[in-house]
C-alpha cells in the first residue's frame, strides 16, 4: 500500500467528515434553533384539467366500492375496469371508497379539493352509498320500526341530494351510476321487514336521482334475491367475488351499451 494513496484517502475522508458535520450542523440549526425564513406555502390551485387519453372512472362510496369481501380485493369497481379493458378500452380507475362511509361522511369527503378535481376529470362516476346509513352499525336490525326507518331515510336522502349536487358541480358531463341497495338479511327471521325497508329506500333513491341529469340508478336488489348466501361473503353482509362480478357485469353492460360511451 503506497503511503501516498493512504494519505489521499485520509484527506478525502477528512473532507467528507467536514461535509457531514456541515449537514449535521445545518440540521441542528434548522430543527432546533428554527429555520431562518418560512416561505409561504403554495396552495393547490385550480389548474387546467390535463387531457387524459384514458377513459377515467372514479368510484366513490363505502365498503362495497372498496371491495370488502372480495377475495381479490377489487370490488365491483375493479371488475368493471377489467371488463372494460377486455373490451379494448383504455381505462383508468380511481377507487376512493372508504369502509364504513355514511352519506354524511361522503358529503364531507366531496369537499376535499383533490376529490373534487378527480371527479372533475372523470368520464364516469360509480357510487355505492346508503348501506351504512340504513344498517346504522347493526342498530336498525333491532329497531325495525317505521318511525326509525323514516328518520334514517330522511337524513340519508338529504345527504344524497347534496352529494349528487356536489358531483354535478364538479363535473357536468360525466355519467353517474348509483348502485342500489340489496338485502343481505333476507334469510333471517325479520327478512320480510328488512327487505321491505331496502325496497322502499331504493324507491326513494330512484326518485331523488330522477332530479339529476345523466344519473342512472342501478338496482342490485334482484341480483341478491335468489340464493343470497351464494353471493355473500362469510360476514353475511358484503358480497363475495361472485356477487361483485354480478354487479360489475351489469355496470359494464350499461357503460358499453351506450349508457356512458363518450
Amino acid at each position: 500500500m503506497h503511503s501516498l494513496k493512504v494519505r489521499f484517502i485520509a484527506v478525502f475522508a477528512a473532507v467528507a467528515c467536514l461535509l457531514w458535520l456541515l449537514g449535521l450542523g445545518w440540521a441542528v440549526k434548522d430543527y432546533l434553533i428554527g429555520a431562518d425564513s418560512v416561505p409561504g406555502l403554495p396552495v393547490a390551485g385550480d389548474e387546467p384539467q390535463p387531457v387524459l387519453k384514458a377513459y377515467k372512472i372514479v368510484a366513490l362510496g363505502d365498503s362495497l366500492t372498496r371491495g370488502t369481501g372480495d377475495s381479490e380485493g377489487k370490488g365491483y369497481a375493479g371488475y368493471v375496469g377489467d371488463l372494460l379493458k377486455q373490451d379494448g378500452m383504455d381505462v383508468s380507475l380511481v377507487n376512493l371508497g372508504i369502509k364504513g362511509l355514511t352519506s354524511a361522511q361522503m358529503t364531507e369527503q366531496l369537499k376535499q379539493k383533490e376529490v373534487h378535481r378527480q371527479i372533475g376529470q372523470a368520464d364516469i362516476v360509480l357510487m355505492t352509498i346508503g348501506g351504512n346509513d340504513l344498517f346504522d352499525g347493526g342498530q336498525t336490525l333491532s329497531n325495525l320500526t317505521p318511525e326509525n326507518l323514516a328518520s334514517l331515510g330522511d337524513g340519508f336522502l338529504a345527504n344524497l341530494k347534496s352529494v349528487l349536487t356536489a358531483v354535478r358541480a364538479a363535473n357536468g358531463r360525466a355519467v353517474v351510476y348509483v348502485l342500489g341497495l340489496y338485502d343481505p338479511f333476507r334469510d333471517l327471521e325479520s327478512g320480510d321487514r328488512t327487505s321491505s325497508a331496502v325496497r322502499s329506500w331504493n324507491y326513494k333513491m330512484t326518485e331523488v336521482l330522477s332530479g339529476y341529469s345523466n344519473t342512472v340508478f342501478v338496482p342490485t336488489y334482484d341480483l341478491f334475491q335468489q340464493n343470497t348466501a351464494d353471493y355473500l361473503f362469510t360476514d353475511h353482509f358484503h358480497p363475495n367475488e361472485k356477487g361483485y362480478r354480478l354487479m360489475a357485469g351489469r355496470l359494464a353492460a350499461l357503460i358499453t351499451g351506450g349508457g356512458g360511451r363518450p
Partner: protein
Amino acid sequence: MISLVQNELMKLLGKRRFMIIAAIIVVLLSLFTYAQSRQSEAVKERLGDVDWRTELQQRIVDWQNRLSSAGQWKDQLQIQIQQYQYYLDHDVNPSEPGAPTFIRGFVENSAELFLPLLVMIVAVDLVSSERSMGTIKLLLTRPVSRFKVLLSKYIALILSVSLIIFLFGLLSFLISAVMFGNQGWSAPVLTGFSVQGGELNIAGVRLVSQSRYILQQFGLAWFISLVVGTLSFMLSILMRSSAAGMGTMLACLISGAILSSMVSSWESAKYLFMVNLGLMDYMSGSAPPVEGMTLGFSLAVLAVWMLGALAVSFTVFMRKDIY
C-alpha cells in the same frame, strides 16, 4: 500523530473491509431500486397512466381503509395520512420521481440499522483484533503514549465512518440515477411536522429543497453511525473477542428497533441510546417512540452515551495490562 492515523487507516484498507461494505451496499441498492421500480409499475398498471395527485389521493384512501384494522399502528397511520393530505392540499409532490427522492427514502430507512451495521464491520475489532493477533505489543512498544495510540485509532474510526457514509451516498446516487434519472434536486419537500398528543402539528411546516434536506439527513445519519461506531469501539476494548462485541452491539441495535415500537408507556426508556437512534423521524415528522422526545433531546442523549463510551475506552485502555 498524523503518521499514526495513517498507519491505522492503512491497516483498515489492507483488510479490504471497505470493499466488503461497498459490495453489500451495491447488492442491497440493486434490490431496493428494482423493488421500487416494480412497485411504480404496479401502481401504473392499477391506475393507468395518471398524475401524482391521483396516485396520492388513491394512497390516502387506501390507508384510510386500513385504519380500522391497523391496531397499534393506528396513530402512526393517522398521522401519515394527515401529512399526505397536507402535501396534497399544498400541491407538493412527496415523491417526485428521480434519484434524490430515492436517496431520501433510502437514507431515512437505513440510518437506524443498516448504516450502523456497516460501521460496526469496521469498528468492532479495531482493538480486539490487535489483541487476538498479538500485534498490539508491537504497537505499544513504540515510543508513543497509549493515549496517542488509542486516539489515532479513534480518529481513523471517525474517518472511516465519514468514508462509509460517503460511499453509501455515492453508490446510491449512481445506481438510482441510472434507474430513475438524475432530476428533482431542487424539488420541494415539506418538513417541520411535529406530533403532539397524537395529533399532527403543522405550525412549523416549511418548504425546503430536496438537496438541502438530503444533506441534513446525511449529517444526522453520520452522527448516528458515529455514536454506534464509538460504542462498538468501546466494546472492542472491553471484550477480547470481536464476535462477542459484534453480537452485543447487534443485540442493542435490534432491541432498539423493537423497543422503539413498544416503549410509549415506559417513560425512562428514552434515556437508552438505542431508542434515540431514529433521528430521521424528527425530520419527517413521525411520532417519536416516547411522547415528548425532541431532536435536541435525542442528540444530547446520544452525545452523552458517546462521551461516556470514549471515557470508558480511554481509561480502560490506558490502565489495562497487556500480555
